[in-house]
């Protein structure tokens, strides 16, 4: 842990002292590979399978970017990062995109030298407890010990929530989520807290998931999204519009299966999206067929959601806020035109 962050800091100091203004797209094309910062293993968002293939909602964003740039979703180097090393890795140029369940906040948007490109998942912080404690609400957690992963917005939300409700607690902060979950499972803590999606994912790793319950309270707003470095607006636009394209594709009814048929459609909005009319993709610095490349690779937003975290996955999380805006959720993307 320590050595990693020292290495990144040295890389940051060295990188900052040599790096000129970045031309990220050109750099990536010359390198022949996209470098994508992901988590150290969070099922549903970014985790490697037994063959070392990364899957997840966050991973799909990187795959979609690689598909749009190279027409090849395998030209990616995944860099697993702990919560506290992630920003330094992005700043130092070690990675081109940080797609690692990272909460969009004002201070992160302004002071880190990086920008959020959109929201891939609307989340909130919750609590996981053992059912044997017979606790039904987070308001019954007075004097509890809470395990948490350090280097996240979680620690501050926790402090605010317990202070606001006049409850005492003890926080034990660990370097990685795995260590925190292990301590929770061993009984050191009564509660494990992180974003609700993370709770469902971590619960799968416990030896007996059915003995643990997620409490109903959601104590914060955690919009998760990808980040890129300041200073390269073209690259910022590309990563931003790759996500928008996935969301718009769902809205337009374009799926991984029907994408080739839809590309031949005469509908004006489909013609613009698929590049048979105009050159919107080229304006981004990509190709005309960028949208069909993305959808062929990872599907539209809804397909990716279902496959990784939704009804088609082990996590089984409901769409909720992440449903499209015209179906009761708040996922909304500007039009491709």
């Amino acid at each position, binding site marked *: 842990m320590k050595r990693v962050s*020292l290495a990144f800091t040295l890389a940051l100091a060295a990188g900052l002292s040599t790096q000129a203004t970045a031309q990220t797209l050109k750099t990536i094309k010359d390198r022949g590979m996209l470098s994508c910062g992901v988590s150290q293993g969070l099922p549903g968002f970014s985790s490697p399978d037994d063959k070392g293939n990364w899957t997840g909602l966050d991973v799909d964003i990187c795959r979609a970017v690689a598909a749009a740039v190279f027409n090849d979703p395998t030209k990616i180097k995944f860099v697993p990062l702990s919560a506290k090393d992630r920003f330094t890795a992005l700043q130092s140029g070690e990675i081109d995109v940080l797609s690692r369940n990272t909460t969009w906040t004002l201070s992160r948007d302004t002071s880190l030298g990086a920008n959020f490109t959109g929201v891939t998942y609307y989340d909130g912080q919750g609590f996981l407890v053992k059912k044997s404690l017979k606790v039904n609400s987070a308001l019954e957690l007075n004097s509890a010990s809470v395990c948490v992963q350090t280097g996240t917005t979680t620690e501050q939300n926790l402090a605010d929530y317990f202070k606001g409700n006049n409850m005492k607690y003890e926080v034990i902060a*660990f370097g990685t989520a795995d260590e925190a979950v292990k301590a929770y499972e061993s009984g050191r803590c009564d509660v494990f807290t992180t974003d609700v999606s993370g709770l469902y994912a971590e619960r799968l790793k416990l030896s007996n998931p059915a003995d643990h319950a997620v409490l109903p309270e959601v104590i914060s707003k955690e919009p998760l999204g990808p980040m890129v470095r300041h200073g390269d607006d073209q690259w910022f636009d590309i990563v931003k519009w790759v996500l928008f394209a996935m969301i718009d594709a769902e809205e337009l009814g374009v799926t991984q299966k029907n994408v080739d048929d839809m590309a031949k459609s005469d509908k004006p909005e489909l013609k613009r999206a698929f590049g048979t009319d105009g050159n919107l993709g080229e304006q981004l610095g990509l190709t005309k067929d960028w949208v069909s490349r993305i959808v062929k690779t990872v599907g539209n937003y809804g397909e990716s959601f279902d496959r990784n975290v939704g009804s088609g996955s082990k996590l089984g999380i409901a769409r909720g806020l992440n449903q499209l805006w015209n179906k009761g959720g708040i996922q909304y993307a500007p039009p491709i035109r």
Partner: protein
Amino acid sequence: MSIEPRAPPPQFAARLRHALGGRAGWRGLFVQILFVAALAWIGYEIAANARANLETQRITSGFEFLKNTAGFDVSQNLIPYSGSDPYTRVLLVGLLNTLVVSIIGIFFATVIGFLVALGRLSPNWLLSRISGGYVELLRNLPVLFQILFWYLAVLAALQNPRQSVALFGSFFLSNRGFVIPKPIGTAGFEPFAVAVLVGIVASLLWRRYARRQLFESGRMIRIWPYVVGSLIGLPLVTSLVFGAPVTFEIPELKGFNFSGGSRLIPEFVALTLALSTYTAAFIAEIVRAGILSVHRGQMEAGASLGLSRGSTLRLIVVPQALRVILPPLTNQYLNLTKNSSLAVGIGYPDLFSVFAGTTLSQTGQAIEIIGITMGVYLLISLVTSAIMSFYSWRISRSLG
């Protein structure tokens, strides 16, 4: 001790030339100055360039963030701390947590190390083999592994607070740590404290008197009954007169955890145990080497003067051995302090965990925070070295 022949004091020019690596004349000096200037220039360029690039990328830099509110809590704070305190306070809380583990760890490591070394040198076969086994086992396993062993295999195996092990109805051992009654001072506390102070001063005076008697008249007097009397008897009498100096707040189980009393958190216990037993194995070998480095004749000389084995060790062998022991012992103390940053693996809130961990990721100012953290560790190490050098200097002076 033998007297070494002293070299004549070298002339300034010769000393300078020597300091510059032995090159002759002004040419050598010029090359050296050029080299230092080049180093300084490279350092300046790196710093200036990094600064300019931080600005163009609009990454916040500088030390203003230290005044901002931290907004997170810490499980062990030796000074009052809450989430509404600034980051400077977090730095201080983390530093104190690092220091307390280091100091207590160094104390136990030294005591265990000396005992194991004496055990290994003992003529008792079993004792020396057990001590040897201890050294070989502990120094050959990675220290992070040992920390995790104590934390996850030993302490986590304890029961939860509701089924904790109770000793005398007021000490509780559970997977939340070791809870003990908390002493609270009463009206009788001040006279008691005065009595203890008087006792300490009196004991020191007794010791001085006994030494003077020994040097002037060669008479050895037995002072321990007087020392015990003034150290224990006097405070005891005082507390009988003025009432008990402290009362104890007995911990009680409330909700999930104990309330009242003092608590040693398991992270602290695991870290201190692991670091002190691990470092003790190295210290034992250093002490053993030191004692063996003293010539056997010294032991025999002590015996022929009629001193007991214990007195010979204490008065003759150990003081000479210390000159050999102290420099490598300092290394071990520094190692223990630096190893305490492995705390992050078990969630102990040391300097590295709360400052270079949580604070770093909340503010994102990696260069400043890693810089401060390196500076603080360097400072701790330099102070430790300075104390040890001073002690070493005093010992070598007293040995002449």
